[in-house]
């Protein structure tokens, strides 16, 4: 589904990703773990097309297409989804209204008819239950005044409603207490299916107790230094990232 090869990317002329190779097949869940500053979020943002990130080499193929030449909204319409680490607030814009605009933009792209209000509500209500989200949240402005946990659940709700083919979760577990973590993980697990791929980015092993990945990658200093099964995450927990720092930079950052 997604093939990343030799991906180099920089922010403000500083190289962050230094040759990433990653292949994720349909139905697979991959986890990327790494210390702060290793480039985890950069990878997520480059995939989603955030402005300010410059790809200097390499390519990202998504279902055989060059993903990097698409605008962010085109990527979304093609089925790529990013659950943000820091979801922004959009005052005055009703959560439901926003979701409906998003759903219909995607449907239009696929040549499907726009959902009418009733069908849309039905769909949203079903998915809201999935992340245990109170309906009152749907009527509030997007993320405005939401707690950290509510914002993350709102991200998962959006994912559930938009039904992406490839979802990237950027440190969705950060700042969550154990109950919220379970809710988020349950939401993700409910969406796992043979057609859908996930890239779960996390700093801690904890999330992977609940979302069990097929493959774990260790990202240090802009490169994937080791890949393995779920047991790799546990090994990391014991040994720390320091053991993987080829240039020593990663361990220094991890300690900072």
């Amino acid at each position, binding site marked *: 589904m997604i093939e990343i090869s030799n991906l180099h990317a920089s922010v403000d002329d500083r190289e962050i990703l230094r040759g990433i190779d990653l292949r994720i097949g349909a139905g697979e869940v991959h986890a990327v773990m790494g210390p702060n500053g290793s480039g985890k979020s950069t990878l997520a943002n480059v995939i989603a097309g955030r402005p300010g990130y410059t790809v200097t080499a390499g390519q990202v193929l998504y279902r055989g297409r060059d993903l990097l030449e698409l605008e962010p909204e085109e990527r979304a319409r093609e089925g790529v*989804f990013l659950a*943000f680490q820091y979801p922004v607030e*959009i005052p005055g814009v009703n959560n439901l209204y926003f979701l409906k605009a998003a759903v219909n933009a995607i449907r239009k792209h696929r040549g499907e008819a726009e959902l009418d209000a009733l069908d849309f509500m039905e769909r949203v209500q079903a998915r809201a239950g999935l992340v245990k989200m109170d309906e009152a949240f749907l009527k509030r402005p997007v993320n405005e005044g939401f707690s950290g946990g509510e914002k993350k659940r709102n991200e998962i709700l959006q994912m559930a409603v938009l039904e992406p083919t490839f979802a990237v979760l950027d440190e969705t577990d950060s700042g969550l207490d154990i109950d919220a973590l379970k809710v988020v993980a349950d939401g993700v697990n409910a969406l796992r299916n043979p057609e859908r791929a996930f890239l779960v980015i996390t700093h801690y092993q904890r999330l992977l107790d609940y979302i069990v990945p097929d493959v774990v990658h260790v990202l240090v200093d802009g490169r994937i230094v080791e890949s393995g099964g779920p047991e790799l995450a546990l090994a990391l927990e014991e040994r720390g990232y320091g053991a993987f720092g080829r240039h020593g930079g990663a361990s220094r950052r991890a300690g900072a």
Partner: protein
Amino acid sequence: MSSETLERLADSQYEHGFVTDVEQDTVPPGLDEDVIRLISAKKGEPDWLLEWRLEAFRGWQQMPVPAWAHVHYPPIDFQAISYYSAPKQGSDGPKSLDEIDPEIKKTYDRLGIPLAEQAFLAGVAVDAVFDSVSVATSYKGKLAEQGIIFCSFSEAVREHPELVRQYLGSVVPTRDNYYAALNSAVFSDGSFVYIPKGVRCPMELSTYFRINAKNTGQFERTLIVADEGAYVSYLEGCTAPMRDENQLHAAVVELVALDRATIKYSTVQNWYPGDKDGRGGIYNFVTKRGLCKGVKSKISWTQVETGSAITWKYPSCILRGDDSVGEFYSVALTRDRMQADTGTKMIHIGKRTRSTIVSKGISAGHGQNAYRGLVKIMPTAEGARNYSQCDSLLMGAACGAHTFPYVEVQNPTAQVEHEATTSKVSDDQIFYLQSRGIAAEDAVSLIVNGFCKEVFKELPMEFAVEAQKLLEIKLEGSVG
């Protein structure tokens, strides 16, 4: 790249910038007492009205040009403006809708104004003001059955002189301010509405203003009187052709609400704003004021200001009647080199008078947007209340938002609240929406509409849709 996203302001077209080719009867530029006599004579006015005009003119001559607003423009040469321009027609203007110059009719068709009788279906009765004169008033007959008067100002002077004389200048005196005085001296037409006691006007009344002729000013006057227990909702829309030189629009609107009467006045202002570099455009210097004269009367202003090179207007309420209510809901958009200094005055005189102010300023490009408001609680206004909210939304780094709230409280039982916020449309917000499949332009209008929602919901339905669309068009190209 990210800041570039917000700062790139491309050209969105001004849709209404066409010129209509009709023969105009235009008075040469310049202003003195003779010009005023000429205007008055052309309209066959009674002596008292000519005297009223001359009195205003003499006052105007002694008044300094106001300089306190947060706007900048070269001095206006008042002698270079023509103060009267009318499409040439047979002797006395059109008798019915069929007699209107087809070119003018076409103009209004292009603007989407339902001038023809089909407008009835839309529930809107329209008075259209083309340059200086009122060209058509639809549904007059239908309204007359209920005793409602809705006609051009000139006609009102002829047919209902006693009403006009009673209320003209009763809310905005001739020497109220520089531009009001100028308007009083030279106003050429406008609309007049009278809703009799206990009548609820069955349809939205509407005036459409259009400046067409070159080098002319438009000085219309609107007077709306709602008698005891009456209700009326009035809409006003404005456009002008694109011209390189600035044009002056100095209107006066007076509203009078008697006991338990309600007047709702909505404006969607889309005068030509000038080009990207600030060449041309309308100077919109307008005095709008409502008098809540009777007990439990209510006046509500809603304005969506998206055009004009300079906007200088403060639709206000004088809350004289006990328990009267004043409201002001405003969206003002400035982009390119547009400047707006707008807001309201709520003067609380009566007991338990209440007022609400919700102002939303949007600045993009090099636009400058100022909210200026006065809440004044007089010693007599026992238990008066005010709530004000002023929010500014900035798009890009070169624009400005300014807030000048004045509060004067002279009664200790009054409650006055003021809230203000300033926010930016951030790249992060746009990217967030894009990453959900929403195009950048749609993302901006979603954010802006969310910001303006409280005001839009005050507009009559079809106007709210128009206002929303207008903002979308105006913001096209505001982000990349």
